[in-house]
């Protein structure tokens, strides 16, 4: 009888030398093909919608009314102002209200015309937000010796309570 002998396999290996190159190619493809779009922007919470507008009276010194008309003129409390000046102007007022109770903090109201340029609106809103952030930073620095973003949760809560960001997007006027 013939004995069946198993054939000895000689070196059946897949060459892996170029594996790294292939993997690098794949990696490069993914790096190039994926777009990491960061979602950054100015966050805001809109007011609740109500059929009947109930007007809440606000005292004059709590209020900072920002008005941007279609020609790009900006009014802050009735006075013409350049957009880059808004921040310093508001900072002063926010700082002076840090120690006041919650009901007396500054309310910034932003109002635009229907034909106002969106870019201008964002620029103005940026200034307003910037003012709040800078006051928060300054306050955090003086009280805790750290910037606002480095504070612990409790400290941040305290600062947020002292300097709440209240921005009101005014109800648009009816179309004429």
């Amino acid at each position: 009888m013939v004995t069946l002998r198993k054939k000895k396999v000689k070196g059946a290996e897949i060459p892996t030398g170029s594996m790294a190159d292939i993997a690098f190619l794949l990696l490069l493809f993914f790096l190039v093909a994926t777009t990491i779009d960061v979602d950054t922007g100015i966050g805001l919470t809109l007011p609740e919608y109500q059929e009947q507008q109930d007007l809440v009276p606000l005292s004059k010194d709590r209020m900072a009314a920002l008005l941007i008309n279609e020609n790009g003129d900006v009014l802050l409390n009735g006075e013409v102002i350049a957009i880059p000046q808004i921040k310093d102007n508001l900072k002063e007022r926010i700082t002076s209200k840090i120690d006041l109770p919650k009901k007396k903090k500054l309310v910034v109201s932003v109002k635009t015309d229907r034909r106002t340029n969106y870019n201008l609106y964002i620029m103005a809103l940026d200034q307003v937000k910037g003012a709040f952030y800078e006051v928060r930073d300054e306050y955090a620095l003086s009280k805790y010796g750290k910037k606002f973003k480095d504070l612990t949760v409790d400290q941040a809560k305290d600062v947020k309570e002292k300097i709440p960001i209240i921005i009101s997007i005014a109800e648009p006027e009816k179309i004429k």
Partner: protein
Amino acid sequence: MKFEKKRASVKQEIPTASMPDIVFMLLLFFMVTTTLREVDIMVQFQLPEAKAIEKIENKRLISYIWVGNDGRIQLNDNLVKIKDIQKLMYAKRVALPNVIVSLRIDKNSEMGVVTDIQQALRKADARRINYSTMLKE
């Protein structure tokens, strides 16, 4: 005096056998962390720039509204009219209660359309919004 070059007796090679593994790890990391864009943007727009911006932490909560330079509005993956926004966003809001609406509006738009969208969003009770902007250098 004769200098003799010192030569180490050990092998002078970097072992490259585990290189593919390392690269595959990197590859996997990138594949997992990057979110592929799932919608086609059908409008052209250029975002405004701002300094005091914040990052939206949770990407899964975001719903997008684009407004192009020709005034067309795109909500998630199709073009819509202003009057449809309320209904669509309300459905979205029911499905995802704390939805954040990211408004990607062309910087040359007029506030009229922005206001209309905002009113629609208020009526749909999707009140957390974010004006998408680029970082001003």
